[in-house]
């Protein structure tokens, strides 16, 4: 039968499993540099089959090519920081403008211009890590999105629905609300509950387990887990699928981010870093022995590197930058 001849003549295309084995060998050899026993075993594996050798040659040359390209970039961490930073930027733009499939509403002015169209549309608004943005909706409602937040709007002739899908927002009812409210009530929803403001202003901060609602003006009718409640200005509640309860006294000012600030009162350092970490990409941690240190103060969010640099002046800690985005705090020596 000519089958064997045919398959020999054709270029062998290594199977997925063989490519993965070749990658495995390459990484093992790299991590055990100069291990002659491992080198011999790898050579044996390559010799076992033509397919192995092809996969090996390709994987090795691909790896060498990537390494030499990256090493051609001068300066410590320049390649890493550039690629990380741009990947995040690109992801943000794609998510915002192309992949969401939704109509992107670039600016409030654009919306207001087309007053006939706004009655019936839906759109997605989102912010990236470290970004804060405000939107004036055509009905007069204003939404502020904190870092890494997203909302979907669903305005129809019957309702005005704002869905918080991620992060934190401040909703301020507009002046034109009184007339419109009766036939098109405004409602905000998230995975933990639903919130209907009766004029006013409130903050919603969604976390993994629950959502913190803080009313700063007016009243908000809250529904969660079969329970309802009217939250008044000055009150805060924790809302989850099982219901709502009064929030403990906060150790930070809930709405200070709107002014670009974190304002803390006797806050644990561990919690503080988690809070700062919401505003910057990468990893920000402290060692366990200093996590319970307390701090109070006003911190500016516009430059979190500078914010962190201030900490050793007031606390017995030191900063360790491994790369620009990997920062750990340790007890000062």
């Amino acid at each position: 039968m000519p089958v064997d001849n045919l398959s020999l003549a054709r270029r062998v295309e290594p199977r997925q499993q063989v490519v993965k084995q070749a990658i495995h060998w390459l990484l093992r050899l790299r991590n055990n540099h100069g291990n002659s026993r491992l080198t011999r075993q790898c050579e044996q594996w390559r010799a076992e089959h033509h397919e192995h050798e092809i996969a090996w040659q390709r994987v090795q040359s691909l790896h060498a090519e990537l390494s030499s390209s990256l090493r051609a970039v001068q300066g410590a961490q320049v390649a890493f920081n550039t690629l990380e930073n741009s990947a995040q930027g690109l992801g943000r733009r794609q998510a915002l403008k192309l992949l969401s499939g939704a109509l992107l509403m670039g600016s409030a002015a654009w919306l207001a211009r087309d007053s006939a169209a706004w009655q019936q549309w839906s759109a997605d608004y989102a912010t990236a890590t470290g970004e804060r943005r405000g939107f004036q909706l055509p009905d007069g409602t204003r939404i502020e999105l904190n870092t890494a937040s997203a909302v979907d709007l669903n305005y129809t002739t019957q309702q005005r629905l704002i869905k918080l899908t991620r992060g934190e927002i401040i909703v301020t009812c507009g002046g034109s609300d009184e007339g419109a409210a009766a036939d098109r009530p405004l409602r905000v929803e998230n995975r933990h509950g639903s919130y209907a403001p009766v004029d006013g202003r409130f903050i919603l901060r969604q976390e993994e387990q629950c959502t913190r609602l803080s009313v700063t003006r007016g009243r908000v009718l809250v529904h969660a887990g079969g329970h309802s409640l009217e939250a008044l200005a000055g009150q805060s509640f924790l809302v989850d699928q099982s219901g709502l309860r009064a929030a403990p006294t906060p150790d930070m000012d809930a709405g200070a981010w709107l002014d670009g600030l974190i304002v803390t009162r006797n806050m644990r350092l561990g919690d503080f870093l988690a809070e700062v970490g919401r505003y910057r990409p990468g990893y920000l941690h402290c060692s366990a022995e200093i996590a319970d240190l307390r701090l109070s103060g006003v911190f500016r969010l516009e430059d979190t590197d500078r914010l962190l640099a201030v900490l050793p002046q007031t606390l017995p800690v030191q900063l360790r930058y491994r790369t620009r985005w990997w920062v750990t705090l340790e007890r000062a020596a």
Partner: protein
Amino acid sequence: MSSPELVVQALYGSHHGWLNAWLRARLGNAADAADLAQDTFVRLLQRTERLELKAPRAFLRTIARGLVIDHWRREEIERAYVETIAHLPEGEVPDAESRALVLELLESIARMLEGLKPRVRQAFLLAQCEGLTHKQIAELLGVSVRSVERYVADALYHCYVLRYES
């Protein structure tokens, strides 16, 4: 004139204005939009397979989307690079010529790594650019060494598929 060219010419005649507007809405810039609209039709001319004409706008959108992403990637890399080298000490700042070369290299790598999960990409880059061991990377990312091994292997496999199988 061969028929593919006629097809593209017909598409151009009836959809060029629309495509221009579509791109402009995404790029927010008329000059870039005009360039990418031209590029889109040039790409069409270079295609050898039969053109799908049932949904010409969806088809044009698909090509234009890819070009928009290329365009953004270039912009983001340039922005991130300029931002990064601004932190370098004076003597280490590269000159204009090597910058152009480096941007091109970074762009090709970024294209290759696109679609990887952030953790996978970070682990891979820390190994490749910074030469960190898997153990060091595991500490930085707060994951196990086994996970890092898997991430780095996944990233290499991803690059392999792009290079040799597509």
